[in-house]
């Protein structure tokens, strides 16, 4: 085994101090980091184990009506927090549609945001990958890329961000609370992840040593609770990453859309907030025609990065269905197959 230092800090400042050294990595649930280390994709010299920092393990209601989720809250604990699931049902549904029960018990909020792409060439150290080794090239281009990005990709990288959790979060204006050498700062989740451009290795807004301490949802996010869904199409019924997914949230009054949120997953290097679609929805009649226009708007800039043109049409249809589902109301109970088209998500077209 490659030797590395293992540090278990007692406080956040200790953690940040420890991680300030180059070559450090925070260890949370370890479900991604340890795989990367075993595969030789990541080889940190120093592991800063934050998994026992108690102050990062809380879900707090804020005075302004928002919620603050500690970075170490486990994915399962968050999804099963009754109050949280009631206020942010699409987030809970997204969490429970991810990975497996065992992984959700271990995976943390911060780790989920920072999980790396599932691009197979990224994991295959014998392949060229700009994200792993800047300037090396991208073997996914011209390779086996049917699940790669259709939005926001560049010739330097066509990978997608695999998180389900982040999709409703970005739709609901989540904010990432970061603590670093220069103190605490807030970055919207929408700005947190970066598109590849020429520098796919710069995946997010973190600077070396920065620690995610929490993710916040503003008060307004809960106003969608009656009409919010997450929908995820995948290649087996459970325990698979999204081919394409969507989070949709609406406030509807008298048949008119008063507020709308839409984001896509599995289509880009970041959870994709579809603002142009939201603009179409806002103030329009809440019906399928509107939703179809919104879907067109959301995918207007999409283009295949390889053998994946089908994802564009698939994404359009998922947007429409997610919006129909949101319109027909959040179910009282979380479905047994969260986010699955087979969880009786209403709106399957009988005339298709």
């Amino acid at each position: 085994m490659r030797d590395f230092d293992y540090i278990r800090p007692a406080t956040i400042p200790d953690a940040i101090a420890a991680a300030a050294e180059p070559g450090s990595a925070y260890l949370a649930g370890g479900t991604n980091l340890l795989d990367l280390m075993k595969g030789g994709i990541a080889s940190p010299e120093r592991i800063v184990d934050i998994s026992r920092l108690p102050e990062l393990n809380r879900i707090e209601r804020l005075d302004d009506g928002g919620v603050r989720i500690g970075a170490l809250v486990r994915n399962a604990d968050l999804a099963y927090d009754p109050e949280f699931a009631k206020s942010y049902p699409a987030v809970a549904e997204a969490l429970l549609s991810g990975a497996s029960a065992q992984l959700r018990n271990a995976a943390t909020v911060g780790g989920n945001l920072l999980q790396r792409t599932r691009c197979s060439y990224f994991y295959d150290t014998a392949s060229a990958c700009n994200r792993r080794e800047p300037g090396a090239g991208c073997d996914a281009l011209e390779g086996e890329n049917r699940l790669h990005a259709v939005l926001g990709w560049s010739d330097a990288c066509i990978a997608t961000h695999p998180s389900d959790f982040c999709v409703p979060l970005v739709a609901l204006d989540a904010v990432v609370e970061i603590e670093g050498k220069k103190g605490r700062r807030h970055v919207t989740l929408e700005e947190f992840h970066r598109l590849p451009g020429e520098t796919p290795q710069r995946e997010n807004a973190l600077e070396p040593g920065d620690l995610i301490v929490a993710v916040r949802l503003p008060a307004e996010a809960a106003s969608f609770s009656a009409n919010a869904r997450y929908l995820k199409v995948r290649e087996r019924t459970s325990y698979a990453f999204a081919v394409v997914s969507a989070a949709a949230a609406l406030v509807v009054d008298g048949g008119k859309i008063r507020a709308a949120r839409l984001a896509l997953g599995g289509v880009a290097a970041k959870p994709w907030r579809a603002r142009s679609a939201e603009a179409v929805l806002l103030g329009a009649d809440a019906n399928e025609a509107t939703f179809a226009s919104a879907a067109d708007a959301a995918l207007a800039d999409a283009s295949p990065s390889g053998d994946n043109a089908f994802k564009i049409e698939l994404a359009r249809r998922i947007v429409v269905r997610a919006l129909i589902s949101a319109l027909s109301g959040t179910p009282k109970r979380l479905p047994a197959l969260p986010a699955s088209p087979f969880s009786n998500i209403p709106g399957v077209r009988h005339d298709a």
Partner: protein
Amino acid sequence: MTLELSLNQQPAHARQGSSIGQPLTRRDGFLKVTGGARYAADNHPPGMLYAVLAVSSIARGRVAALDTEAAKAHKGVVEVMTPKNRPALAIDPDAKDNPFMFRLDLLQNDQVRYPNQSIAVVIAETLEAATEGAALLSPRYEALPARVGLDGAKSFVPRGVGIGGPAVQHKGDVETGLRSAKTRIEATYETPAQYHNAMEPHAIVVAWDGDRLSIDTPSQGLAMAQGRIAGLFGIAPENIHIRSPFLGGGFGSKGMISGPQVLGILAARLVGRPVKLVLRREQMYGPVGHRAPTRQTLRMGMDGEGRLTAIDHHARTASSTFDDFFEPAADASHTLYASPAIATSHDAVRLDTGTPLFMRAPGEATGSIALESAIDEAAHACGMDPLEFRLRNYAEVEPMTGKPFSSKALRECYRQAAETFGWASRPLQPRLMRDADGFLTGWGMGTATFPALMFQAEARAVLRSDGSGLMETGAQDMGQGAWTAFAQIAADGLGLDIDRVEFRAGSSDLPNAGIAGGSGHTATAGMAIHNAGAAVIARLADLATGNEASPLFGAGNEGVLARGGRLYRRDDESRGESYAEILMRAGLTEIEAHGKGAPDPASQETYAKHAHGAVFAEVKVDPDFGQIRVTRLVGAFAAGRVINPRLVRSQYYGGMIWGISFALHEEAITDRRSGRIQNANLAEYHVPVNADVPSVEALLVHEDDPYVNALGIKGVGEIGITGTAGAIANAVWHATGVRPRRFPIRIEDLLG
């Protein structure tokens, strides 16, 4: 089957036995769920070192340099084995003198012929040190372009397919048959490379003692493994003791000893200490076999009544560049449907992959999904219900050979499964059924078949003066329940309650039980056990009937029955005595006898022997997204005598779930340029999870077969895949109107 005994042990006798036919739970179940079952890698002999493979990342070329110094300098690393210092072998690993002798990569040179080929072994005090040592080798290669895909090289007709069957066969003239047909179909189907992916990776723990070898490793064929290792090292087979009490699955990939296992033995030789070598998951995608990809074209002609006039089944497949295994996919058309003209042919390309191998229903699974899809297309072209079409073309004799079937309860399988499923209300046209939620709903069916094979096996039976019995055979339990089923056969063979029988298996120092493969293990080793039991009972009967002091004196062998630890006079059951009494009177602590199991050449010549089944599937498809869910599977199978219905049902379930996997999930994704497999892990190489398996029903159809063997056993291990995968594909067509032509069926194929 020639019985090796004088005692009357007709099947009718055995059927009265109290153990065969009982739904006993697994006798090893408790050990397994409590973690008490010791698998190969659970062994830690004193002084053991860890060996880790370094494997190639190129598909073709040579290893130009390895930094063995860096690896050796790593703390804990004891030795690095490369072609330079690998201990000598008695024979060339590339030598091959029979089709079951596969060429192995044992560091014989610096050549690389597929990705994940072993290029060095690092041996260290800890697993971690060995792992890091392997990484530090930082190989440099001289690489050549990889040959990838079914069009990646020039094709040729192989000399033999499967276990050596002809690559091209025909009966009648298919061109004439096609010309005379009223309706014709032609369709091409592709199946991907698949990997066995047993839960338990290939693992070996090995210790040398001079020229003697002690080995713990999972094996589906202990005696073959022993023989192969003996040949490679030039030592006597008796000097090699292999223990394989439990396998965490094998599916064919543990049928032959693989290269990495032998490298473990070489590593132990090199360092003079016991060594453990366990493959990592991704290392299982190369040196331990796989199911080769196929591209199959079927042409069929039908007359005005929907009777087949011709079946032409062609399969393109692939093997490695250095060895031969050709997936006999087209042979699936030999046995199921009557047709005056049948032609099957194979061609192949040689690619830079590991050598393909038998994988659960080799040929039958790949061939079945294409054949059953084509039959469905043919039925539709004739405007007929798929079941009616299959019955119209029901084979009363084996189509290719004209031989009668030893037994064939397929009509009854169709009837029971169709009725249970509710097939009668199925609309003929596709895309007509919707469920309450709007999902496209489709029903499809497929016919299942698998040959009833037997190999060679031996067993040793002992009766002891305390009234207990012992049965020994080197049988292998891959998880199918051999520990239980064989104990049941042993109990009846010895005329004892199962709790009075000690059953030993899973070790190479026991009589050779042949291979757990080809769905023939229960029949073959079961017959050896049955015959050994009968033989030892015959000896016991001799002792009693020849002794004046016995109430059985003068009864003669024909007149004695064995049951519950006692012998009875057949003509007067009030006269009998216990085994213990007989042995004690004779002053013996125990008696023993041997038995064999083997196919009977005469009945082999006369009869076609196959198990059959019918599988019906319901799928739901999201009309917008093309996501598929199998909501119901009903299979009915007739496979002769059922030794244990609980275990048999499990085999059918497992096979049917594998059918779901074949139709919807499994595929090794190979990079078209490098030849490296991109999803060599269980997160991305999909198999069904529980949510993909909502409802599976397996019906056991009664079937007496007096010809397959005295116990009437056919095999149940592989048949469940066949029929099922096609039934699902056909249900997807019925739901959507889109005919799946490549597998696994993908979302984009159904988006429309």
